[in-house]
């Protein structure tokens, strides 16, 4: 290996390390800080306690926010995933989407959230819909569409075209084929899509701050306004709780990808 080659390698490794340190540092600071017994955020904590967790979990305000976040995230998740699956069915039956439609569905990925948020704000004010949880759920679902659509198209594209005809000749009607054949095959992608669109809404800040409910705000929105006023270790505790939920979601996704590799292979061509 040449010298310049080695240097490039070292630089690449260093870059990746720095990248991860940068990404993980806030978490490394936040988690221990949440276990402090003091009134102010400090790192490292000199005295460990669950004080701020009990404060957060006993606070009406935080719990209401969490409930609001959860409701919106679930509605948003269902809308985004169902739409994604429907697009998947269209692609399965009628072939690839036209480039215009594809671009439209993927555009939320390209447009900055802040642009969507300010645009929505101006539309929603005259309609007196600002702060409506349903509107926020729909807006967040739209932002999650690129992910759910891509996952769903990939899943349905991989399903053999004659599988539908096969199930149909075996006596199954369209709804039976959908429920008993297609959805189970696409199940891993659908679950992944549910998790990712849930996550998308669960930690989304920009839209929540601009057009979301104000009095009973979603959790990220509430954290943002809380941070502007005071910065107690309660914030670290909430962050850590959010982190745990995200890790659980990531773990489920990881397990899904293993299951998928094992169970969705075609028969091999060699004979035993």
């Amino acid at each position, binding site marked *: 290996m040449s010298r310049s080659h080695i240097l490039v390698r070292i630089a690449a490794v260093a870059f990746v390390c720095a990248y991860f340190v940068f990404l993980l540092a806030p978490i490394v600071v936040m988690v221990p800080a949440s276990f402090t017994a003091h009134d102010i955020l400090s790192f490292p904590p000199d005295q460990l306690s669950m004080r701020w967790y009990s404060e957060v979990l006993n606070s009406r305000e935080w719990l209401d926010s969490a409930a609001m976040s959860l409701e919106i995230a679930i509605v948003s998740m269902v809308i985004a995933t169902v739409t994604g699956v429907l697009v998947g069915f269209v692609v399965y039956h009628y072939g690839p989407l036209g480039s215009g439609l594809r671009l439209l569905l993927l555009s939320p990925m390209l447009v900055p959230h802040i642009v969507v948020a300010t645009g929505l704000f101006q539309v929603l004010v005259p309609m007196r819909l600002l702060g409506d949880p349903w509107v926020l759920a729909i807006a967040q679902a739209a932002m999650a569409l690129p992910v759910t659509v891509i996952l769903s198209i990939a899943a349905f594209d991989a399903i*053999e*075209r*004659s*599988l539908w*005809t*096969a*199930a*149909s*000749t*075996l*006596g*199954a*009607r369209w709804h*039976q084929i959908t429920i*008993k*054949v297609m959805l*189970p*095959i696409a*199940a891993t992608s659908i679950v992944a899509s549910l998790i990712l669109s849930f996550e998308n809404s669960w930690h989304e800040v920009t839209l929540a701050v601009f057009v979301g409910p104000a009095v009973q705000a979603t959790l990220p929105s509430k954290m943002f306004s809380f941070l502007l006023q005071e910065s107690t270790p309660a914030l670290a505790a909430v962050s850590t709780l959010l982190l745990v939920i995200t890790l659980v979601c990531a773990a489920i996704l990881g397990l899904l990808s293993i299951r998928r590799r*094992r*169970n*969705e*292979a*075609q*028969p*091999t*061509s*060699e*004979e*035993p």
Partner: protein
Amino acid sequence: MDDTATNGATLSRSPAGTSVKTAISIENLTVRYGEFAALKNLSLTVADGELLTVLGPSGSGKSTLLNIVAGSVFADEGRIRFEGLDVTHMPPHKRRIGMVFQRYTLFLNRTVAENIAFPLEIRKTDKDIQKKLVAEALDMVGLTAQASRYPSQISGGQAQRAALARAVVFKPAIMLMDEPLGALDRALRKTLQYEIRSLQQRLRVPMLYVTHDQEEAMSLSDRIVIVRDGKIYADGPPRELYRSPRSTWGANFLGDANCLPTDGVLNHGRVEVADSQLVPVSGQSSGSKKSSVLVRPENLQVSRTSGNNAEFKAEVEWVEYLGPFQKIRLKCFGTELVAQVNGQSGDFAKGEHVFIGWRGEDAILIEQD
């Protein structure tokens, strides 16, 4: 030959003389994809218990024909009847057809046994009866040991066996096979061909089998229908189609053929071909200027000495030794001929001058396309 099929008679005579029902009758079927007509006014019947192969090159419309019978494509014109019942507009799930596809169509999230149980599950068959029928079907295709495996854990041949079991377990009225062995290797294809044939005979279920493999068609079928450009080119038992093809295209499509253009005027059992040579042929004058003498390679005799059935001079161009027989490419009458001779008989060398010929009864006059 098309005419007998067009009548779509509900009763026809089997070779044994007993009357058999028509399982499938297709009448004046036309299917268009935009400007392109995939099938043109095609008529066809399948008798009860018959294994009919639809053979044709790719793009001939044979898959469209099968999809029409399956109900996944609808006809622009024409009718389809199953045992007299009009199913032209009937959706696939009501047609009681067992179909096996070229691509693997097992449900990957279900075990082999669960796959086979699927049609019974849909029909809400009693659980105990389901178990019994699935066990029977598994046994029939020899997959009892693989019952609880997932499709990813079995081989391609086993997958097609499972698909076959799934297609027969609910006792379909007819069976459709869409190149079911297309994805498998040669040796396996042979075994499965035999299994499909014996299964079909045991169940006495009419079967419409689509393939582009003429050897497969010949070895499986009661009757072969050759489709070309969306129309029926020929219809008959394998022997008949091989021995007396309608034209040079059919002769070349079904096996190898030596076709020598001639004016078709018979004189003392001979016709004139290129180089003003007079070659023996059976039958009568064809009455068409565009005719050909057909000699199958296995009827072409090659000899080092001139003799009764070896009267024309030829030059060996290439010898292909295949074990039980060898194929010899020869230059004669200004064209290239192929002879198939016994693998044990004399070895010919490239460039060697030989004599060739055939018995008059081994050559016929056919139309030249």
